[in-house]
């Protein structure tokens, strides 16, 4: 029996330093979360790249599709007033 096809894929996120967000660094196969965490340690943090690791089953991630970009992001493009730079400040007004 070929079991390898069934070994679930995990996504690995590493916090490089306290205070920073965990960042996606790659993925790996493991039988369970515990094992994924150990593999991640061995694969992705061999040179002290992190202080904390998250592993998440790839199948548990729901993501938007690039083809949906129009309905997701286009409506944002005609709203320049959401940016501070849209408002011109008088020259002698600082600190805003």
């Amino acid at each position, binding site marked *: 029996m070929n079991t390898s096809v069934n070994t679930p894929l995990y996504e690995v996120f590493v*916090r490089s330093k*306290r*205070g920073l*967000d965990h960042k996606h660094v790659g993925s790996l196969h493991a039988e369970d979360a515990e094992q994924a965490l150990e593999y991640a340690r061995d694969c992705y943090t061999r040179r002290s790249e992190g202080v*904390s690791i998250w592993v998440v089953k790839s199948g548990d991630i729901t993501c938007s599709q690039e083809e949906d970009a129009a309905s997701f992001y286009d409506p944002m493009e005609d*709203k320049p*007033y*959401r*940016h*501070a730079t*849209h*408002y*011109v*400040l*008088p020259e*002698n*007004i*600082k*600190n*805003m």
Partner: protein
Amino acid sequence: MTQFKLNAEELEQAFQNRIDDEQKIEPKDWMPEAYRKNLIRQMSQHAHSEVIGMQPEGNWISRAPTLRRKMILLAKVQDEGGHGLYLYSATETLGITREELVEALQNGTAKYASIFNYPSLTWADIGTIGWLVDGAAIVNQISLQRTSYGPYARAMVRICKEESFHQRQGFESLVVLANGSAEQKAMAQDALNRWWWPSLMMFGPHDAESAHSAQSMKWKIKRKSNDELRQAFVDQTIPQIEFLGLKVPDDDLKWNEERGHYDFGAIDWDEFLRVVSGKGMCNKQRVEHHKKVHDDGAWVREAMRAYKVKTLDRNRMKEAS
């Protein structure tokens, strides 16, 4: 659950060392129970303020004087809802549920910024809220970007990026009024008169009287004291008021050459306590409105839950057959 190898005393010492060393505390770290409690109080109060703060401004969305102003106000209020979300989520990393937080707001055990208990009476109030109230919030939030709890600090960074649009749109709107007709200018002055003192109160009691301050500073939950932040706000705002050609409603306000800061008059703390304790003009209305909207939306949450249960049942039946 995380296992810790040190005893209680060593844990506490390691925790304080980490803070003294300017490192952030992250959700799965050991932390003193009082630190957790203190954070939950402050962060949830901040979250509630973002959400309740939508009401005085929301009051004017349908009556904004131009389409442009309406779109801007809508976008700002939408941001505030988002800020509430960032902060509630960050608070939930401390092991409390959203339901508990909302319940505490609705039953009055949790507070929100008492400035939102004042009514927004005229269109000039909307510009003034963006300029002064968001302006005061920004002074506080900039210093909180360096708070010791990681999720709170990161939420603050995200929020500060969005806030400066809030303040600028308010100021821009006031520039128009202050340079408009005599009536418009009077309306701007009237708004400043009503919002100035409550804005100064936003920074909380004087340092000597502040109940949570000393411990919060030691734990670096707060990075600057109430009085320091208030002074910074006054110093940066006076030139803006002068630019508008409006008058600060404070006869004691004057530049102090020696201190390099503005001196300002005594804050009416009785008024502050009255509003905090629930006797402000709009306290009842704000919480009632929150409850009503929450209850009105219950059917949506129930429908989503019912759909979820049905889908699970269906999948189970499919698997069984």
